[in-house]
C-alpha cells in the first residue's frame, strides 16, 4: 500500500513538473527530440519572408519553413560571445548561400532571448546580420528552450510531411565556421 502511494505521488509530481504544463527541465534540447511547441511572428520584410518560404501574416512555426534543415541561433544583443561571434555566423549564412548543394536547403534564423524588437534591431544593424532575427522580449521562448546560456545553436531537420526533429544541439560559440557547417550538413544527410 505504502509503495503504491509513493508511486502515485511521484507520478503526480512528475507529471506536474515535466508534463506539458510544467515546461521542460533546464538544459539544451536533446538530439533526436522535438522542438517545444512555439510560434514566431511572421516577418514583415518581404525578403525575409521569401527566404524562409513563408506566406501570409500572423505567426508561424519553425517546421513550416521551406528547408530541409533550419539552424536556429539563440542569442542576445547583450551577450559578449554572441557579439564576438556575429561575423562568423554571417559567414555560415554566406557559405550556405554560395553553395548550390546547400542553398535553399539549409536556412538560418536567430532568436534574441530577452531582447525587445528594438534590441534585436540594434544587433541586426550593428553586425549587419544577413538572416532573419526574432525577438523574445519576455524570455518566454528562452524558458521553453531550457534557459540555456547564449549563444546556443539548434539544428532542426524538417521532413517532407512537415514532421521535424532536432539533429544538432550545441551550447556556446563554435570553434570554426567550416567545422560547424560540416557538422550540420552531415547531421542533415545533405552531402
Amino acid at each position, binding site marked *: 500500500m505504502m509503495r503504491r502511494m509513493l508511486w502515485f505521488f511521484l507520478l503526480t509530481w512528475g507529471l506536474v513538473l515535466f508534463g506539458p504544463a510544467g515546461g521542460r*527541465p*533546464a538544459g539544451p534540447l536533446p538530439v533526436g527530440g522535438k522542438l517545444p511547441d512555439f510560434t514566431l511572428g511572421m516577418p514583415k520584410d518581404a525578403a525575409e519572408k521569401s527566404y524562409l518560404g513563408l506566406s501570409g501574416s500572423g505567426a508561424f512555426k519553425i517546421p513550416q519553413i521551406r528547408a530541409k534543415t533550419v539552424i536556429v541561433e539563440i542569442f542576445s544583443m547583450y551577450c559578449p560571445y554572441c*557579439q564576438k561571434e556575429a561575423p562568423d555566423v554571417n559567414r555560415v549564412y554566406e557559405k550556405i548561400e554560395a553553395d548550390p548543394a546547400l542553398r535553399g536547403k539549409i536556412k538560418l534564423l536567430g532568436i534574441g532571448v530577452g531582447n*525587445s524588437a528594438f534590441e534585436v534591431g540594434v544587433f541586426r544593424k550593428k553586425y549587419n546580420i544577413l538572416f532573419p532575427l526574432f525577438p523574445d522580449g519576455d524570455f518566454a521562448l528562452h524558458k521553453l528552450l531550457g534557459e540555456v546560456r547564449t549563444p546556443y545553436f539548434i539544428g532542426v531537420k524538417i521532413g517532407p510531411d512537415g514532421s521535424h526533429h532536432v539533429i544538432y544541439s550545441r551550447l556556446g560559440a563554435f570553434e570554426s565556421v567550416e567545422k560547424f557547417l560540416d557538422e550540420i550538413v552531415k547531421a542533415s544527410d545533405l552531402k
Partner: protein
Amino acid sequence: MKKRLMIISCLVGAVLLIMPEVRSVFALSDAYKDNIYNPGSLKATDSVLKVKVGGKAPDFRLKAVSGETVSLDRFRGKKNVVISFVPAAWTPVCSDQWPGYNIVREMFDANDAILLGITVDNIPTLFSWTNQMGKLWFPVLSDFWPHGAVAKKYGVLRSDGVAERALFVIDKKGIIRYIDVHDINQRPSLGVLMGELEKLKRGK
C-alpha cells in the same frame, strides 16, 4: 503514515516547483561560464530616491577602473550624461547590461551623451569582471569607499549595501531629466532609454 507521506510529497513538490523560478531566467552569456553568482529573485527595489526629475544632479568624484578620476561636473555644458548604477559585479542581469550598452556607442554619440557605469564594488573586482565583457568604451566607476556614498546621495543604495539597478539621464545643465529605478531582477529596455535621450536632443 499516509498523511505524513502526503505532506512530504507536497513539500518536495513545492520546492521542485519553485526551483525553476529561482534558477536564473536571464539569458546569460556563455562568456562568463560558471562564474556568475545567482542571488535568486530579490525585492524589486529597496531604497528611497533622494533626487527627482527637474532637480540638480548631485556632483561626485569617483575612481574609474582605468585609473582616472571622473567627476560629473566635468561634463557640464558639454555632454548629456547617462548614469547606470548596477547592483554588483558577477551577478546575472548586471553581467549582460553593460555589454549591451557597449555595442551602442553610436547611439549615445548621436544624442551627445556619455555613459558612466557605477557599482559599489572595488576596483580589482570591477577590473576582473569588466574584462569578461570585452573592451568597454565608457568609464566604469567604483563607489566602494566610503561605501556606496554616491548611490546613497542619489537614494539608490539598498539596505544590503548594493546599489539599485538605476538609470539617471542628466542634461548638459546638470539637471536630472529621467530616472528609472528598475526592478533589480530585470534589465531595463534599451529602447526606452534611447527614447529619453532622443527627447533631450529634440529639446523636449
